[in-house]
């Protein structure tokens, strides 16, 4: 556990890091970014909390069973979107033209529109959840093993 100044600043900074990471995930089809990059940014915020507070404090709020549920649901969203276009072929983009997420942008450089992209923003969301939970679980398990030696179940 580090000093009081580091703990106070980490408490204030974690909110901005979470918002920045979610912005990169959700705008993955308009600007550079996507699922993998945004998930790595949020996981680095969780690692900052583990380094500032010590792993015994973080273990009370962030259990590994909850992280497993989040990661599995992210993988299921990704495969579900791939199977939903099974009418034509596996991985078919079936939302182009429908009013949910399909809107065809004009050809050439243009200011971007969020309501385009077909099935790709939902796949970005699933992959972002999976990377976020997976990298946090790896670092939490290593920190708990090498210092506190107290893992539940």
């Amino acid at each position, binding site marked *: 556990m580090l000093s009081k100044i580091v703990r106070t600043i980490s408490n204030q900074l974690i909110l901005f890091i979470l918002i920045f990471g979610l912005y990169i995930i959700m705008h993955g089809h308009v600007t550079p970014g996507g699922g993998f990059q945004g998930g790595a940014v949020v996981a680095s915020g969780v690692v900052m909390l583990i380094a500032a507070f010590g792993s015994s404090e973080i273990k009370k709020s962030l259990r590994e069973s909850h992280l497993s549920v989040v990661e599995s649901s992210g*993988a299921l969203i990704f495969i579900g979107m*791939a199977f939903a276009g099974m009418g034509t072929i596996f991985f078919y983009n079936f939302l182009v033209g429908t009013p949910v997420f399909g*809107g065809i942008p004009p050809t050439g450089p243009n200011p971007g529109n969020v309501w385009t992209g*077909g099935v790709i923003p939902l796949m970005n969301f699933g*992959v972002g959840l999976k990377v976020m939970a997976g990298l946090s679980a790896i670092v939490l398990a290593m920190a708990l093993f090498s210092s506190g030696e107290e893992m539940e179940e």
Partner: protein
Amino acid sequence: MRQVFAWFVLITLVAFLITGALLMHPFGYPPSDMDDYMIANSQAETANNNVVAAVLFDYRGLDTLGEATVLFTAVTGVLMLFRALKRKENKL
């Protein structure tokens, strides 16, 4: 004796790699037929402004599926190994 053999192997491999790097196509003018099609037709077929995201999730989606499987297997392996080590220490 072992040191001499190791130096010989290292110098042979590095010379092979640098010769291969000098004989490639001139830097800045790559041959590109598939990528010209993807840049020209990506906005009409996938309704997407980001060509890299369209390639990752639509034209080559099976590679992303394989990579999600590798990530899932690595996380499962790490958590399982730490649980086995803790139980072995409790029994000793």
